[in-house]
């Protein structure tokens, strides 16, 4: 497969081979909505059919810049009243409610995140927020960040997810949540804690291209970044270690403690612009949005877009959309468990009856799959390749949730009407299968696979709807369709 690049996404679609990983088939609309959105919905498909990819992208960029934070879906945003507060105010609020160290803000963050992934119109933004939350991971539901993690999401990740990575990195390097999690808040000139310095180089920027001396120097240069009694950021020059440093190609005399913060920022700016950082970010973006093994041509092109735009994030997305490799990659990713569940909700068009309960349900469901958003317990973020997610237990768990959502098991969600998903009255049992498979997976199933479902219903394709077992077996049929590889792959 040769990767070529075209002036626009529309041109790239025209020049791409009309291919997909079997049993999925070519479907650029569902493909786009399974990569730069958390799965297709009827509404998003209709918009793309009518207006095309370029208009969709422009709309998504407008959402991402207009509705930074949580406001793209007002009802979901209203489920997180603590998310707008400062760390100090969250603590006061918790104290006033009898639980000074409560996890309420962290719970609200998880639940609002899940709600926005499932229901926000700003889908491109949510996929970028998810990507950078993992890239600069600070695990939520970790006692040390109980009153700062939500502010990190708001002021670091969401603020810059459609902006500049340099700005995001600078913000992360002075955010209490990151400073606490990777122990920079405890690091002083007399005893340097290397935790942040190492992960800054290895995970956040250049990757495994550093020496132990680089770690020690970076850790020393960043001492002084700490927090005050109210858990707000503070640069304390008294604990900043001075003395010349060399980190990769960056050198600084670092002679005055009071200039230590600016010296650290200079290092962060240097690292953000480093070609290794561009490679690291570009590869991860391509693994997230294209395939587990993207071509080096694509990775290099995305890295170049990042560097020539001065470390902007959206040009990387544009470069991916301009490549034929992206449009030829439908089915090359396996949905992670939480993605599978969210995509299930979206494609079934599940509505919500009680927002607080529904979002809590999504919270425990994704938690039970080891894939609760923002909760990966190590600094490197959730793994993003299929081989890292192999699990018999999670397969069974996911299949159970397909049955649960299709069957309306949870009172907090509205019941799904399978009849409405046929998109008209099916002529007979076989037609019902044809319509429902296409609607739920965006693929017209092969005769052999439709026959599997016909056997599942144990009736001939010609059976009229009035006599079909679909009167009772419509929900199980929808569940089996969602269990199929057609939905498991994206």
């Amino acid at each position: 497969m040769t990767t070529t690049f075209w002036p626009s996404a529309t041109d790239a679609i025209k020049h791409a081979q009309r291919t997909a990983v079997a049993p999925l088939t070519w479907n650029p609309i569902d493909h786009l909505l399974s990569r730069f959105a958390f799965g297709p919905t009827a509404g998003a498909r209709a918009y793309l059919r009518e207006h095309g990819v370029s208009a969709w992208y422009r709309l998504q960029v407008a959402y991402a810049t207009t509705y930074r934070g949580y406001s793209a879906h007002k009802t979901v945003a209203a489920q997180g009243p603590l998310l707008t507060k400062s760390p100090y105010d969250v603590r006061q609020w918790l104290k006033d409610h009898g639980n000074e160290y409560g996890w309420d803000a962290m719970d609200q963050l998880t639940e609002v995140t899940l709600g926005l992934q499932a229901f926000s119109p700003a889908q491109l933004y949510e996929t970028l927020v998810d990507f950078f939350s993992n890239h600069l991971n600070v695990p939520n539901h970790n006692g040390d960040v109980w009153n700062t993690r939500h502010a990190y999401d708001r002021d670091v990740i969401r603020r810059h997810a459609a902006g500049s990575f340099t700005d995001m990195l600078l913000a992360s390097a002075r955010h209490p949540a990151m400073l606490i999690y990777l122990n920079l808040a405890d690091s002083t000139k007399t005893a340097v804690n290397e935790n942040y310095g190492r992960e800054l180089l290895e995970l956040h920027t250049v990757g495994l291209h550093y020496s132990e001396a680089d770690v020690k120097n970076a850790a020393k240069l960043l001492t002084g970044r700490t927090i005050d009694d109210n858990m707000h950021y503070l640069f304390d020059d008294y604990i900043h270690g001075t003395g010349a440093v060399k980190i990769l190609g960056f050198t600084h005399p670092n002679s005055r403690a009071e200039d230590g913060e600016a010296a650290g920022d200079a290092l962060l700016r240097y690292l953000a612009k480093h070609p290794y950082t561009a490679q690291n970010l570009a590869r991860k973006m391509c693994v997230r949005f294209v395939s587990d093994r993207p071509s080096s041509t694509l990775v290099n092109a995305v890295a170049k877009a990042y560097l020539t735009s001065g470390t902007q994030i959206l040009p990387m997305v544009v470069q991916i959309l301009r490549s034929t490799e992206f449009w030829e990659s439908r089915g090359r990713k396996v949905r992670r468990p939480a993605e599978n569940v969210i995509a299930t909700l979206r494609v079934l068009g599940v509505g919500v009856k009680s927002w607080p309960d529904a979002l809590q349900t999504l919270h425990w469901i994704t938690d039970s799959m080891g894939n609760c958003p923002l909760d990966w317990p190590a600094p490197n973020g959730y793994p993003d390749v299929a081989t890292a997610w192999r699990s018999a237990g999670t397969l069974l768990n996911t299949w159970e949730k397909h049955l649960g959502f299709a069957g309306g098991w949870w009172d907090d969600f509205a019941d799904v009407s399978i009849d409405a998903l046929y998109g008209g009255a099916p002529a007979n049992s076989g037609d019902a299968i044809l319509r429902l498979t296409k609607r739920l997976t965006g693929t017209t199933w092969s005769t052999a696979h439709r026959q599997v479902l016909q056997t599942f219903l144990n009736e001939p394709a010609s059976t009229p709807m009035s006599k079909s077992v679909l009167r009772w077996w419509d929900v199980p049929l929808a569940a089996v369709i969602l269990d199929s590889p057609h939905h498991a792959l994206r």
Partner: protein
Amino acid sequence: MTTFDLAVQQAAERVQCELRAQDDAWGRSGWTRRRFLAGLGMVGVASLGAQLVTTRAAYAADATGTERTLLVIFLRGAADGLHLLVPNNAALGLDYLKSVRADLVPGDADLQALTGGWALNARLKPLYDQLWATGELAFVPALSTQNVSRSHFQAQQYLERGGSDTASSGWLDRVLEKLGPGTTFRAVAQGDRAPMSLAGTAPSLALSSIEDFQFPGWDEIQTASEVAVRQLYRGLAGPLGEDVPNTIAALDTAATIRAGQTNVDYPGGDFGRALKDLAGILKAEVGLQVATVDVGGWDTHTDEVNQLNGQLDDAAAALTTFFDDLGTERRKRVTVAVMTEFGRRVEMNDSGGTDHGHGSVMWLLGGGLTGSGVFGHWEQLTGAALDDGDVPGWNNPFDVLGELVQKRLGAGSLYGVFPGYTPKTVQGGPIATTT
């Protein structure tokens, strides 16, 4: 289709899943199902019923109730070996230790003396009381290799790949291939996903709960859905094409395991829950050869003593309950290796914790050891003896793991298991017995 027809079809699908799993497992190591069945005088099976019988035969032939099991527990985050297993006299380096990490060296009241000046953190004394006298508890300190860096992620991946940064499979996967045929429950990863050590071509099952290991649905819907899902994945390339048939093949056995589970209460949170499931699988005698458990929370950059106290209490409680639950006879066939990616810096940092280091400690528990003790090369700790401030890698972790799989699992030649490395006996060894 009648309910009976459905049940037959479901059984047939599960059988085919098992056959597929066995083909996968045997094909690459020179075995084929055809050859195996031929060996049993069972060629030419055509009918469904006969296939069912032959598969059950092949299946039962493997789960003999005499399998030995290696359980590898990985402490994620780099456990501080010097705080668990203390070189507690001058000859081993206690004076130097006290000079650079005084607050992290337990006093004698918080230690259990072992042998040769070594002492165990008293938080692990329940393990000593249960296992030491019977020769079922050993430690190897100063474990690492020169290619293990001080990055959590590189070090974990390197160790789990068996000494490579690039191998596409894990070392336990390659051991399974050498072992030849096995049951669908031969390799179990406790948790939400299989670790790198099991990545590769030999089928393994990752599960977080035997209780929930059931196909969803009820009555005919459950049976028919299972059949349909299996058929929809037939011929699919990639991990799901292997995992779906393996999952379905394991459903019957999981039901058997559930039915036989005792109601022992396990402490220790997720760690305890994982060991409880494994005890159930072991007691059901379904041919478990290799199991993995991940335990997080060992990255003690700050307030190390408090953090580790909780972790060690949980570990001691969960493991002693596990060995009690297995009973003295069955645990002779179960060897547990507890490892971590690297040790921590010898010198304490300013946060009451330790930064990333090098040489780590492995704990060995249960059956098949030559005796209780502390194995491996050790030199008195001094500033000059250290490797850039860390305990050096005086001993190689692959020597220990290699000996275990060779002697306990009968893996034969270890060629290819640890790429480019031939395991040897650690100093003071052998550690494991073949009997």
